[in-house]
């Protein structure tokens, strides 16, 4: 076979597009190698993982700049490489990967942040004895995530998606000797499964409708007009078009992954994993996967409606996002575990992204995703460094005054915090503001906008609370804190840099990022700045209000570790409601889990009593019948049989003499028989 025909390429894809598969493949291979190492070799495994991801980063950058050049040249920015995978009956299932602005941006982000996290982990996990396993999992995770990013087929995406889920299970439960960790891992896995079932349904439906799972396939893909027309044409239930319904099903999967209401419960518990894992899962990749998925299937949801206008599907997305944003922010106010606070803020930020997707389109949501990835990774790794510095202490009440003890961490963490709260000129400000603005102009309803604004206020509040607890006042922990090693702080610094400056690629004045994603030409007009200006001012005012409130309540006076929280004193009922996360977990365990328990018990009882009884009866009958048979045998059959056997064995004894044990005797016999038979044959066929 010739090399030319080795790949069934469709469309004239550029070299980098053809070799795009290397990006996820290399980390996965690296993890495989790390897994196959004969005995754990710490240095080698981490080097392997980092090198592999670095390679992917380089390739992704190449791809990114390729797309960039295409775009700036005004050429079409989407390249796909598809190849047939299996044939199911008559239907041919294709897989493939796509290179377009969306995936390019995503893959650069994932591999870059991921790389930083890897480097950070070499410091963080230094004393862990399962170092090798950790890096094996990490790079498997990264590879799977990159696979999600580049895949051009819903099926391939789903595979990688499940792989991501599985590896996150492994990573969250990395310290499986801790029962809480094991439980958290299980919880995460099961909860996301709930979403994935809907995802699977949606996928199957889509395949049934369009006969292809490819997103883009030079006009024949399921995300392209021809297929969409068909989907929009035929209505499903509740005034949804088939497109909308499928979109919603897939969105359910996304919600599961990125912890939207009501499937958010697993995310805070996932904090049981090592901090780099939390950073990787919550900041850069896994939760982003959900948002990315929605962005990918956006055409389905948008369902032909022009931007600005909305469809039922998008409305649902918006509402879910907005309410999640506020809800999680509320909970975050009353948490004491540094990582839990960040986790809830992640949930709420994801809410923002979803809402952004819902109201403003792909670009708005994705922009927030990217910026958030950077500063949230920064925050998590900062938290990790703090925890590291305070001897594995996670309770913020037992910290304090760290701004002297660990200056680098403080500075970077502060940058991340400001970015998250959305203080002007910080990255978070621009992206969040974009979402707010889009929400303001949303045609369907006003409420989401106010929910989001309130969320912003709360965000500012709880972040201030956390920071002032952790870094200000005096140290309340045991031992005394110390700064983390260079290998941990350097990534923090790099991320902080981006957390501060990244926002400027997408300001209203110069919406370069947005127009790149929508592959429109980018332009600068400061007039937009003026339009958005009012909202900007007001939102920043809100943010400052939140910060000020937080500072007034917590920052000014440094509370004691044992002393009850300020809010607790003022409004205990509300406080406990928030602290116990609106009792959602309890609710679930009271309803869903309890139901399954009961069902299981019923089934068990049924098994024992009913089926058991029947089986016992049948057994008894058969054994009785068997006894009868034995009687017959012993009396009737055996006698005759024994006699026959005797005769046979005698005959065998006689025949045995023929078998002399002489090889050549057998050969002779064989030859003689052959001769005779052949002779007979010839003779008979004579006539």
């Amino acid at each position: 076979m010739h090399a030319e025909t080795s790949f069934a390429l469709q469309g004239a894809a550029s070299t980098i597009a053809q070799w795009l598969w290397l990006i996820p493949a290399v980390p996965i291979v690296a993890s495989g190698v790390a897994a196959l190492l004969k005995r754990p070799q710490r240095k080698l495994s981490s080097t392997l993982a980092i090198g592999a991801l670095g390679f992917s980063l380089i390739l992704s950058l190449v791809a990114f700049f390729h797309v960039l050049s295409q775009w700036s040249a005004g050429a079409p920015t989407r390249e796909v490489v598809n190849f047939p995978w299996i044939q199911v009956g008559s239907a041919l299932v294709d897989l493939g990967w796509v290179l377009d602005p969306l995936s390019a941006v995503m893959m650069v982000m994932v591999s870059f942040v991921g790389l930083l996290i890897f480097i950070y982990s070499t410091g963080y996990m230094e004393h862990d004895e399962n170092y090798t396993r950790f890096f094996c999992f990490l790079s498997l995770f990264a590879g799977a995530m990159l696979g999600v990013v580049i895949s051009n087929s819903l099926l391939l995406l789903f595979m990688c998606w499940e792989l991501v889920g599985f590896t996150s299970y492994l990573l969250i439960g990395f310290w499986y000797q801790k029962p809480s960790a094991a439980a958290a891992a299980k919880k995460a896995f099961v909860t996301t499964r709930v979403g994935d079932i809907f995802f699977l349904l949606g996928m199957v439906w889509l395949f049934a409708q369009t006969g292809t799972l490819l997103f883009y396939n030079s006009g024949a893909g399921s995300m392209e007009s021809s297929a969409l027309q068909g989907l929009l044409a035929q209505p499903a239930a509740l005034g949804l078009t088939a497109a909308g319904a499928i979109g919603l099903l897939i969105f359910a999967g996304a919600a599961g992954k990125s912890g939207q209401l009501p499937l958010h419960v697993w995310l805070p518990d996932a904090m049981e994993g090592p901090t780099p894992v939390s950073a990787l899962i919550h900041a850069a990749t896994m939760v982003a996967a959900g948002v990315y998925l929605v962005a990918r299937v956006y055409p389905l949801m948008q369902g032909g409606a022009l931007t600005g206008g909305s469809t039922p599907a998008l409305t649902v997305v918006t509402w879910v996002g907005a309410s999640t944003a506020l809800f999680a922010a509320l909970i975050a106010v009353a948490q004491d575990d540094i990582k839990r606070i960040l986790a809830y803020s992640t949930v709420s930020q994801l809410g923002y992204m979803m809402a952004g997707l819902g109201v403003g389109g792909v670009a708005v949501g994705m922009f927030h995703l990217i910026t958030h990835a950077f500063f949230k990774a920064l925050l998590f790794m900062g938290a990790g460094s703090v925890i590291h510095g305070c001897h594995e202490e996670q309770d913020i009440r037992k910290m304090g005054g760290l701004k002297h003890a660990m200056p680098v961490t403080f500075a970077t963490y502060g940058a991340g915090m400001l970015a998250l709260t959305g203080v002007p000129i910080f990255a978070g400000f621009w992206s969040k503001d974009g979402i707010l603005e889009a929400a303001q102009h949303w045609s369907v309803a006003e409420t989401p906008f106010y929910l989001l604004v309130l969320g912003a206020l709360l965000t500012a509040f709880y972040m201030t609370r956390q920071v002032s607890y952790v870094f200000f006042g005096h140290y309340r922990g045991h031992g005394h804190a110390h700064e983390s090693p260079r290998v941990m702080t350097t990534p923090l610094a790099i991320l902080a840099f981006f957390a501060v400056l990244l926002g400027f690629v997408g300001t209203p004045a110069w919406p370069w990022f947005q127009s790149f994603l929508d592959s429109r030409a980018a332009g600068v007009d400061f007039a937009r700045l003026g339009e958005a200006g009012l909202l900007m001012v007001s939102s920043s005012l809100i943010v400052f209000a939140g910060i000020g409130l937080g500072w007034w309540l917590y920052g000014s006076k440094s509370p004691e570790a044992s002393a009850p929280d300020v809010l607790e004193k003022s409004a205990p009922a509300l406080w406990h409601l928030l602290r116990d996360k609106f009792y959602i977990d309890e609710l679930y365990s009271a309803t869903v889990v309890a139901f399954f328990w009961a069902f299981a018990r019923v089934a068990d009882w049924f098994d024992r009593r009913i089926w058991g009884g029947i089986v016992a009866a049948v057994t008894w009958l058969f054994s009785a019948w068997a006894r009868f048979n034995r009687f017959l045998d012993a009396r009737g059959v055996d006698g005759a049989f024994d006699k026959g056997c005797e005769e046979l064995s005698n005959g065998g004894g006689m025949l045995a003499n023929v078998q002399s044990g002489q090889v050549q005797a057998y050969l002779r016999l064989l030859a003689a028989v052959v001769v005779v038979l052949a002779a007979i044959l010839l003779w008979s066929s004579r006539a």
Partner: protein
Amino acid sequence: MSISFYILSALMLAGGLGAVMLRNAVHCALSLSVAFTGLALLFLQLDAQFAGLAQILVYVGAVAILVVFAILLTRTSEEIGESNVFSRTWLIGLILAAAVFAVLGWAVLRTAPMFPQPSAAPPVTVQEIGSALMGRYVLPLEIVALLLTAALIGAVIVATHEKEGAK
């Protein structure tokens, strides 16, 4: 029937006879390789270049050497002047062999009239053989590969010592 056919078959048959008749086992092996060579030449004469060369490579190059090795490894006493190299029942064996030849020859001669007339030599290149091996006959090829591997391992296991220590 070319003259070379007669020469080659005579060579081959002589080799074969030597292989079964000579008293010294090593001589038997050597004349066996003569027979193999003759057969290979016959193949070449039948325009089966590939098969002929493979025959030499495999049989003369490997099998004959194997046989020789086995003979030297299993040499109990000096074969020179070994009393009777033929088994007690050699006569029956001879008769049977003759009978087999008679039957076969009879069959051939009886069906000879209905043989097709010799056609021109088929122009078959190694390329074709290779593509056939990789195409139509790829499954047999794989199976043979498996068989050879199994045979290799099996032969090694059978021939090596049971007792520990020695490798």
